[in-house]
Each structure stands twice: as C-alpha cells, then as structure tokens.
C-alpha cells in the first residue's frame, strides 16, 4: 500500500486520528478498494468508530490487489506523527503513508517546510477486520445539524459528565445528563437542554423515545466535525440499540457507533400500553408560559433538614400542584430508575451492550439488520484470542 495526502487533507487525516483516539487505544488500518479505512473500538466494545477515506481523498492511492492486508497499531504512536495538529496545515506539505511488509513497518513520511523531512516507522500487528453491526438506514429517528449546534449543546455539560440522555418528540429534542445513582441525584447538577426541530437541517422522528449514551466519544467526533465544517447526522432507533453519529462528504465518511443503555422497563411499559407509541414527552419546564405557583414547593421546614432524604416519589406526590403539570415524563423515569436499582435480577450499574462481532466477522458487508441485543454474548477480549 502506498498513499499520498497533500495540503489541507493532511490536517483532516490528523483530526480523524485524534478523534479515533477518543475511542480506543488501537487504530485499525485497512486499505480497501473503496478507500483507506481507519477504525477504533473501546475496550468494553460499547463504542466503535470508522473513517473511510475515498481514493479521491488522496493525491495518490494504490493498494496491492488480492492481498488482504489489515493491521492495528497503537493510536498514540500515530498521534505522535501528527503531534502538532494546530500547525500541521502551515508546516506539512505532503504526507506519505507506505507499508513495508517485509519489515512489518508502516511508514509515515511528512515533507515539511524548510526542507525538514520527518519519517516515522511504526510497528504494527496483523489483525482481522474490525466491524461493527449497525444499520443507519433502518433507524426510525434521523437528524442532521451543523456541528456548531451540537457543540453548543455539549458545552453545557462539564467534562465530568459521562453519559447523556437524548429524548425526542416530533418537534423537539431534549438532552440531559444521566445520573445513574439515586444518591448522586440529590447532589449532582442536572442539566437539560431543549432543542427545537428548527435548529436542525433535518429532523425526522419515527419513534419518539429516549436513549442514553456516553458523551466522551461524541465529543471526539465533534472535534473532527467542527474542524472540517461538516454537518453531523444522528441515527437511532430505541434504547439498547446503538446510536450512530455520521459525517460525510464526497471523499470521506465517518461513523461513530455508540451503544445505548438498554431500558427493559421502558419497553415493557410501552408493550403493556397496547404497543401504541408513547406520546412525545411534554416540554419539561416550559418557561415561556410558566406560572409561579406550579413551581412552588410546599414544605414544612420545622421538620429536620433533609427533605432530600424522603423518597422522591412520595415527595412529588405531596406536592399536587407540581404533580399536575410538570414533567410527567421525568417523574416516570425517576420511578423507573429506582425500580431498576431495586431489581435484583438486573446488573446494578452500567448496562451498555457490546456492539460488535469484533474481529470474528468476515470483512465483507458490514451492515446488518440483526438486532444488536443478540450480540451481547461476545466478550470484549475475543480479539485477543485471535492472535
């Protein structure tokens, strides 16, 4: 394999590597006929990302036909090649990527200003193809927005926030931080944003529901999207099946596939409700026409401090004014979450499921409509056994 990247595309390649480094420790490189694929997966296999750079992205792209080559290498070492991303555009004129099978080396050569030549010979390991199972096209909920819209949403959540919940109705999207632990909830800052459909370039909700996923990987993609100015598309179906964030232009495609928390209770509820789609959640706190009384809290302060120690549901019921018009949606959720925690048959904490066949999947067509939930059995270390 030999490929040459020039000009601004060097920075695009570098940014892609940096955003993949937010996912996992290893970078999977696979030269394909339809372009160069760079992939990464996190250790728990709940997040996967892939960039495919079309041959046209390169000023030269040649692969050895018939030779099924793919390898993985430490993403950190590839990051060293593109260490100074900020100045790359100004300093690097050309980047060669070349495979030396004989020496087991992947060589990155940067031709820089002032005649400086940087050569990085990176060692790699052979590997099977890394593929995730996802199908964007069958997703009921599809959105597309300028990266800035999402960046300005994510910015409201401090870096300490690990997971967010996204709920959608036909007109709006709510994003809030997910706090698993009931005890944490009475201490943690809870943030919720409400985005109107108008903020999006495309907003299609076929299945109004809510999903919870990790923010870290999304932040990684947004860095890429922001620097390339590409809009971001979001695809998801239901809790437990993955959410896909995509960026595309004529010469590249990036897909970030993140597992979402499975929400068995949710499913059961809507099933028992006769299978009809849940009505979209009302705007949680509509401050446009709020009425002060509905937000008042009635409380006897002569009682010892912590009303927070009282069970939340009981407390909400003690406040009929609030009950009647606020956040049916979120209250329900609180109960569900509490129920969930009390359920002994359920794993107590994180419920993200593995997304992948890992390296055992044949390299060919990657999309599958098979429900992801059946892939749970795959252990995260299956990849090691292959070697």
């Amino acid at each position: 394999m030999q490929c040459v990247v020039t000009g601004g595309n060097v920075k695009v390649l570098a940014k892609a590597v940096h955003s993949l480094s937010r996912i996992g420790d290893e970078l999977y490189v696979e030269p394909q006929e339809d372009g160069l694929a760079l992939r990464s997966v996190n250790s728990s296999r709940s997040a996967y990302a892939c960039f495919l750079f079309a041959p046209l992205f390169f000023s030269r792209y040649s692969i050895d036909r018939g030779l099924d080559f793919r390898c993985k290498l430490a993403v950190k070492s590839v990051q060293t090649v593109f260490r100074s991303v900020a100045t790359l555009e100004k300093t690097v004129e050309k980047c060669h990527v070349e495979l030396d099978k004989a020496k087991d080396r992947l060589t990155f050569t940067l031709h820089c200003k002032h005649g400086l030549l940087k050569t990085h010979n990176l060692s790699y390991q052979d590997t099977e193809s890394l593929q995730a199972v996802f199908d964007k096209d069958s997703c009921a909920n599809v959105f597309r927005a300028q990266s800035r819209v999402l960046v300005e949403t994510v910015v409201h959540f401090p870096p300490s926030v690990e997971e967010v919940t996204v709920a959608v109705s036909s007109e709006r999207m709510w994003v809030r931080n997910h706090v698993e632990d009931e005890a944490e909830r009475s201490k943690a800052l809870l943030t919720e944003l409400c985005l109107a459909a108008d903020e999006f370039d495309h907003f299609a909700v076929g299945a109004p529901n809510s999903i919870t996923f990790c923010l870290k990987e999304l932040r990684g993609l947004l860095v890429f999207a922001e620097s390339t100015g590409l809009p971001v598309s979001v695809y998801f179906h239901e809790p437990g099946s993955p959410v896909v964030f995509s960026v595309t232009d004529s010469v590249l495609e990036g897909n970030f596939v993140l597992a979402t928390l499975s929400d068995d209770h949710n499913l059961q509820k809507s099933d028992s409700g006769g299978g009809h789609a849940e009505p979209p959640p009302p705007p949680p706190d509509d401050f446009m026409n709020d009425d002060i009384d509905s937000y008042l809290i009635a409380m006897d302060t002569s009682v010892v401090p912590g009303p927070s120690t009282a069970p939340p549901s009981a407390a909400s019921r003690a406040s009929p004014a609030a009950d009647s018009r606020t956040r049916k949606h979120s209250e329900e959720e609180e109960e569900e979450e509490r129920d969930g925690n009390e359920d002994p048959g359920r794993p107590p904490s994180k419920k993200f499921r593995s997304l992948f066949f890992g390296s055992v999947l044949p390299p060919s067509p990657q999309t599958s409509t098979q429900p992801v939930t059946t892939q749970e059995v795959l252990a995260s270390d299956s990849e090691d056994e292959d070697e």
Partner: protein
Amino acid sequence: MKFRGKIIDIACLNHFSRVVTTISKLTKMCVLRLTPDNLFFVLSGKVANGGVGMWCELLQANFFDEYQMEGVSSEFNEICLEVTPENLSRALKTVQNAKYVKIKLTRKHCPCLTIAAELPTLSSVSRVVTHDVPVDIIPKSLWHEFKEPSIPDFDVSIYLPPLKTLKNVVDRMKNLSNFLLIEANMNGEMKLKIQTDLVSVTTHFKDLGNPPWGEDSSQDGGPSHSRDPEDMAEARVDIRKLQQFLMGQQVNPSKAMCNLVHRNVVHLVVLHEDVSLQYFVPAVA
C-alpha cells in the same frame, strides 16, 4: 416558601456569575440566605476552631429584574439553603449569553435551585436550558448559625494594596512556605513575611492608609487612639487560606481592607458597589 428571580440585563448576569464564582473558589459548600432585599452567601466559620468564615452580601435589586420570595412565615420571611456554589457557578457560566435567566426554588427529585435560560441559536427559535442545582433546606432552628458576624475587636485596620499585587506576592510565598506572617500598623504600613531554612522574604507595603472607623462610628472595637501608629499588630496564617481568598477575587473592588486582631484573626473586607464580602482567617501559633 417560594423564591423566583429573573435577570435580563446581561451585565447583571455576568456580575452575579462572577460573585458566585468568587464564592465557589472560597468554599465547597455554603449557605444561601434569601431575604426580601438581600442574598447572603454564608460560611459560618468556626474561626475559633481554625476554620475560615465568610459573609457575602448582595442587594437583590442590583441584580434581579424580578425578585419574588415568601419565607417560612411572615414573621420569619427568609429562606435558608445549603448549596454547592461550584454547581451554581457552572450553571451560570454556560448561560452568559442568555436572553434572560430565571432562578427559582423548585421541587424536583429533591429541592433544587433551578436555573433556566433562553439561549439564542442559529435558527429563529431559541433554545431553553435548565440546570437543577440540588439544595438542602435549612430548618429555622439552625438559622442562628448563619447570622451576620460582628466586626471583631481589631487592633489595626488597614487598606489592602492592589489585590493583584498581593496575590502575586502571596502565590510566590506559598511556593516557599506554608505559613505567612502579616504585620500592619496604623501608619499605613503592612509587611508580609515568610521564613524557612532556605530563605527569608519580607514584602513591605507603605502609604496604604487606614480606614476611618471614626469617632462617630458605633464601632467600639476600633483601634484605640492611644495606640502608637508605628506599633505593628501581627498574625501568622496558613498561606493557603489567604491564597484561596485572593484567587477568588476576579474584579478589583472599590475598597479592600484588612482588620487585624493581634495574634488572633485576620478579617478581610472587600467592598464592591453592590456586594460586600467578609472573610475571616484564623491566626495560627
């Protein structure tokens, strides 16, 4: 018990946010007292036990365009909440460009101060963000712990030099030592000293001026006139506590002063137009 406030003016919002950030630098937890006219951030210092104390007072009318509150009863028209100022600060920081910000006491999964803001967007529709900051409601029986501290019976009262200069000096001294000796007299002189095995450093400030706690003032505790103006009062303090105070000062105040009770306590007072902040650092042996 009800509380609801609204800030529209962006300058007021920024100012309020800065005050809260200052408080968040000083303490992890504090008490927010709401009265019809004022907001108070209180850290009831067990100064006697070596802790710091804080009292910050804001006139609500200078910040809020709307402000409605109903206390526990008409007789005790106050609300007393324990808050994490860091959470409040974080919430306010993300809404700095809001069209308006509403702050209200709400009943969510637990009592919260809910900060809701309408943010401008690229599209014609604005975006609403809400932050629920969990609070604990403090029962009336404990309110006495959060009353305004009395001005200590100080030996010397002196204006502070520019806080930035003070911060630079204290930051460096912190690198060199854990304790700092503050000396000051009624002749406008102040010295900061550290002494270790490796080095001794003394910074001399002069012509700082002494606040007129005047004869007409009801302040009995003011320095007696018999005191020799050259006579230094001193207090040795944990540098970190002083550093913490200086770190939080984001804007130069209209007045900043230091009241020293000889070998007992350092009482720092910072006055802005509409905010006053008092900070008590206990002396160590």
